[in-house]
Structure formats: structure tokens, C-alpha cells
């Protein structure tokens, strides 16, 4: 056997193994994916595309908002990096059905909205981007009414521009 044919054989088996691996990689996630699939139609595009806080709240809830000390918003006083600002919301309100977070000075103020079915606690923590120093508002929906709490977060380096 020449060195060339030996090399060819090795190459062939390498390609075969690679193809088999690839086929498995494609087939496996397809099976798992059938378990659940997030529905893109749930995304409230209209609310996320609004350019002001008031319009975003109107598009998301279409109701008046009541400032409440029962809504607790945790966010740093000063965020050194606007690209990653930890924000969490909790509340003493009963039967919370949704929580939304708004960063007033962002190009699109609505940052995130969470739907909480019965049995899920009225508390959520996440990380947001902030373009600059801004008011951050938590909206909590309980018993069909919207309650809010806000606080100012100072941003040293913005997280939305280049």
C-alpha cells in the first residue's frame, strides 16, 4: 500500500465520522425542540417599539398607573457599566400577573415584560442595558391594576451606543 492510498483511507474515515456526527447534531435538537417552543407571536412588538415611556406603558397595558410603596425595585444607584445593570423587582401585592421594566432614557424605553401565571411569585431579577443615566420604573400588575415604583440610576459608561 502506498502512503497516498493510506492517507486517502484515513481521510475517508475522518469525513465519514464527521458526517455522522453532523447528522446526529442536526437530528437531536430537532427531537428535543418538539418538547416546547417559545411562541414569537407573544412578543408585544408595538409596546417595545414605542419611543417614550408613556407610549410604551399605554401600548403594553392601556391603563393608568398608580405609584405604590408595595412595589420594590432594586437597582444600583450608580452603574459603572450601562451594558449590564442588575435590576430586580419584588412586591407585597397579591396575585401578580405581570411585571414590566422601563428605562425612560433608552431609545426604546420598554426593556422587558414578564408574564406570571397563578402559582408564580411576583418577583423577578434580570440584567438590563442603559444608554445613559435614567429613571428606571418597575410596573407590577395585580388584580387588574398597575402599580409602579421608580428610581434613578446613574450610568458612567452607556451601554447602547458605539
Amino acid at each position, binding site marked *: 500500500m502506498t502512503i497516498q492510498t493510506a492517507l486517502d483511507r484515513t481521510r475517508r474515515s475522518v469525513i465519514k465520522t464527521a458526517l455522522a456526527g453532523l447528522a446526529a447534531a442536526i437530528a437531536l435538537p430537532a427531537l428535543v425542540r418538539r418538547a416546547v417552543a*417559545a411562541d414569537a407571536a407573544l412578543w408585544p412588538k408595538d409596546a417595545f417599539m414605542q419611543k417614550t415611556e408613556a407610549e410604551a406603558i399605554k401600548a403594553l397595558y392601556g391603563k393608568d398607573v398608580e405609584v405604590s410603596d408595595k412595589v420594590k425595585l432594586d437597582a444600583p444607584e450608580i452603574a459603572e457599566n450601562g451594558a449590564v445593570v442588575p435590576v430586580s423587582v419584588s412586591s407585597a401585592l397579591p396575585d401578580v400577573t405581570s411585571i414590566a421594566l422601563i428605562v425612560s432614557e433608552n431609545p426604546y424605553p420598554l426593556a422587558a415584560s414578564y408574564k406570571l401565571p397563578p402559582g408564580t411569585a411576583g418577583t423577578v431579577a434580570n440584567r*438590563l442595558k442603559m444608554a445613559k443615566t435614567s429613571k428606571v420604573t418597575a410596573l407590577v400588575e395585580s388584580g387588574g391594576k398597575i402599580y409602579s415604583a421608580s428610581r434613578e440610576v446613574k450610568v458612567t459608561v452607556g451601554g*447602547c451606543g458605539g
Partner: protein
Amino acid sequence: MASTIRVRAVANGDVTEVQALVQHPMDSGFVKDAQGNIIPPHHIEVVDFQHAGKTVFTALWGPAVAKDPYVKFSFKGAQKGDDLSVSWVDNKGESDSLVAKVL
């Protein structure tokens, strides 16, 4: 390829606390690359968490959610060893999902 989703769900009595981390660029559409071209928006829109065939938490995310998003919440009714399904879909129609065990 490894999953883009990392999730840790811990049952403590009746309440299960869930922490999830998703690998995703979450491009806002406002940032420019090194050549000065706008990087188009590319962000997760919906994340669905299901337990026993029912949605327990839905996250609706805009471009202002930080890169490699993190979220924490808690829900009632799961037991240790139960399955928790997580799936996301982004504005380009890309998606991923994972089934994790409640610890």
C-alpha cells in the same frame, strides 16, 4: 454544539427557584462595529418556561436586555426530579430549548 441555555432550578419545599442564563449577543441595533457599520438588531423576544405541560413564566425581551441574558424567578408546585422546559426564540427566528431537572 452545547446548548445556549443554562438553567438551575432548585425546589425548596413548595417553591422552586429558577435561574437561567442564555448565550445570546442581544444586539440592540444601536451599536457600530469596528468598520463603523451598524450591527443590526438581534435579540431574544420570547423565553418560555414550562413545568408539567403548563407555562410557569414567560419573558418578553426587548433589545435593552443585557447580552447573555440572566433571569431569576420562582414558582410553586414542582417536586425534585420534575422536568422544567426552557425555550427561546429571537427576532431572526433562531431558537433553542432545553429540558432540565428540578434539583
